[in-house]
């Protein structure tokens, strides 16, 4: 252990770059009651750091690989079997052999009810509770990150994952589809035919639709994450809520409730596969998700700003 590197009391190590960098002697700082507000930056460095930490984590990669595995397995299974009888399996499955780009759409459809909410639940439930569990929350706040700023950055990080996750499914699907099946002009649900390039744009649009769909769930996860110091608890609760919402959406007795469930428009992206595109579902979905963000964002704010950080 290099004890020599720690300066002695009599000879404070003035050569240490720590003070050169700051441009002030430590002693000069004492007594300056002036706030260092002139040096303040926005939250961008913290957001960059948040995204870097999120996307460098092995767990995030594992989840994205699992998501990418869905279209790959699906395409291989279809390729290996002789023919898919029309009308069985997920929608569009029978079209895959005619056009590989359908793998992307079919895989997204398969991922909507469980896989995407599962991964988003893990990320959103981990936001605050994960930091609390590691104990880094207190250091972030003492830094000082600021509670509101941290909450916004954490939500933005989760939203970043909501953007990436459906894209992974869509692009992995299009990729494996193009590798295993012929690619050609795509027939839309309205009967119109578009070029493969236009079809990729539609795939990205569907992914964007799913991103918006998942933002409400992320806000729920963020709020649950402020309630506990145990990240697994917040993750599980978020995933359970997404399942409950979908189950309630299946019950005809609760018809009045359906428009208020955040999962109500999750499968409404078919309109994006028509010519011309019908944006109604996209708009309704965005409005509903914005409502969830407002309500659960406010709850998370109310909880987190007054919370005693004892982890």
């Amino acid at each position, binding site marked *: *252990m*290099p*004890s020599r*590197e*720690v*300066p*002695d*009391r009599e000879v*404070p*190590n003035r050569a*240490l*770059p*720590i*003070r050169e*960098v*700051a441009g*002030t*002697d*430590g*002693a*000069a*700082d*004492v*007594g*300056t*009651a002036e*706030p*260092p*507000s002139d*040096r*303040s*930056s*926005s*939250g961008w*460095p*913290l957001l*960059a*750091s948040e995204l870097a*930490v999120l996307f*460098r*984590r*092995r767990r995030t990669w594992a989840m994205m690989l699992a998501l990418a595995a869905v279209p790959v397995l699906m395409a291989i299974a279809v390729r290996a079997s002789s023919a898919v009888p029309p009308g069985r399996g997920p929608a569009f499955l029978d079209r895959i052999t005619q056009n590989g780009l359908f793998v992307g759409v079919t895989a997204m459809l398969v991922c909507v009810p469980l896989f995407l909410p599962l991964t988003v639940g893990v990320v959103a439930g981990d936001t605050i509770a994960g930091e609390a569990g*590691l*104990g*880094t929350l*207190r*250091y*972030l*706040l*003492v*830094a*000082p*990150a*600021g509670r509101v*700023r*941290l909450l916004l950055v954490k939500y933005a990080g989760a939203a970043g994952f909501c953007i990436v996750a459906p894209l992974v499914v869509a692009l992995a699907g299009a990729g494996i589809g193009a590798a295993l099946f012929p690619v050609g002009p795509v027939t839309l649900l309205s009967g119109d035919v578009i070029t493969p390039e236009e079809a990729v744009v539609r795939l990205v649009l569907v992914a964007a639709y799913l991103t918006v769909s998942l933002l409400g769930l992320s806000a729920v996860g963020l709020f649950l994450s402020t309630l506990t110091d145990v990240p697994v608890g917040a993750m599980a609760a978020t995933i359970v809520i997404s399942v409950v919402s979908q189950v309630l959406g299946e019950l005809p007795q609760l018809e009045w409730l359906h428009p208020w469930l955040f999962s109500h428009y999750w499968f409404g992206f078919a309109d994006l596969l028509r010519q011309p595109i019908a944006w109604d579902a996209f708009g309704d979905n965005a409005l509903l998700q914005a409502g969830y963000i407002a309500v659960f964002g406010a709850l998370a704010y109310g909880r987190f700003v*007054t919370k*005693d*950080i*004892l982890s």
Partner: protein
Amino acid sequence: MTAAGRGTELAIETRGLSKRFGHQLAVDGVNLSVPSGSVFGFLGPNGSGKTTTIRMLLGLAGATEGSVSVLGLEMPDRFHEVLPRVGALVEGPAFYPFLSGAANLRRLDAADPYAATSTRRARVEAALERVGLSHAAGKKVRAYSLGMKQRLGIANALLSPRELLVLDEPTNGLDPQGTREVRSLVRSLAADGATVFVSSHLLAEVEQICTHAAVMSAGRLVAQGTLPELRDAGKARIRLVTPDAGLAEGVFARLGMTPVGGRSNGALVYSASVGEAGVPAGTAARAAPGGHADGAAPPDGAEPAGGDVVPEAVVAALVAAGVRVRGFAVEQGSLEDRFVALTGEGFDIAQ
């Protein structure tokens, strides 16, 4: 308190600070005064409310009652002005195990909106070098030992030039070498003009590095002041080994010294204000009963008329009176004595 005079400025001041968890009063009416530029030892048994107090100082937990001002500004209202000037190690280090040591520091530095992005790498390297972790900068924290994590925690507190450092148990988990390094680090920080607030239950550590100290017990602040004041430095004792106890007692009485506990193991133990001991006598601020560590309250008329008794004069007087001096020692009242008197015998004195 006014922040006008720099000399009398307090780095930390709490007024009637209390924290209640359910029915339990974890911190009870604490009035802490940490002078600027001091190395302040915050002592207390485990569970006495030290860490809860620190959490309130840093705005992590809200006070149930009372107020806190740090560097002259109210907390937690003005945290965005205060905290960038404060480096902290709170209740042990905590890091992302899947990131390297340097990446962890960069992450926490990015959370400070006042830390310049352009100098981040250089400051992280400097902080790592200062705690002797340069060689392990690229290693994942998962592979760090407790002592290395502790060093990394201290490096985090040193990422920017700080006016106040709050170090909660900084030597926890460190080997003797690391403990020495932390001590000299604290001294060098203080030499640069920073105020260092160190919480600890290691008395020896506090005695070696601190200028001031406060003692917590069961949520209350039972003593605070300069270290000599706390130590009851004026109350030095003389331990004499002699077969002529009766004669010696007469000499001590003439010199105005008072017996402490009478004879122990054939030795006489006397208390007096002894000169040349290097520390002036003072009065510690006492907030609770149990002030005297040695119970040596002088009886009437036994107090020296004035001034100190010089140890060599005592020996000379003893020899002149024909006392056979076989052993003679001047013992300083120790912080530990004081401590046990304040917090009770059950205290975990892990030295």
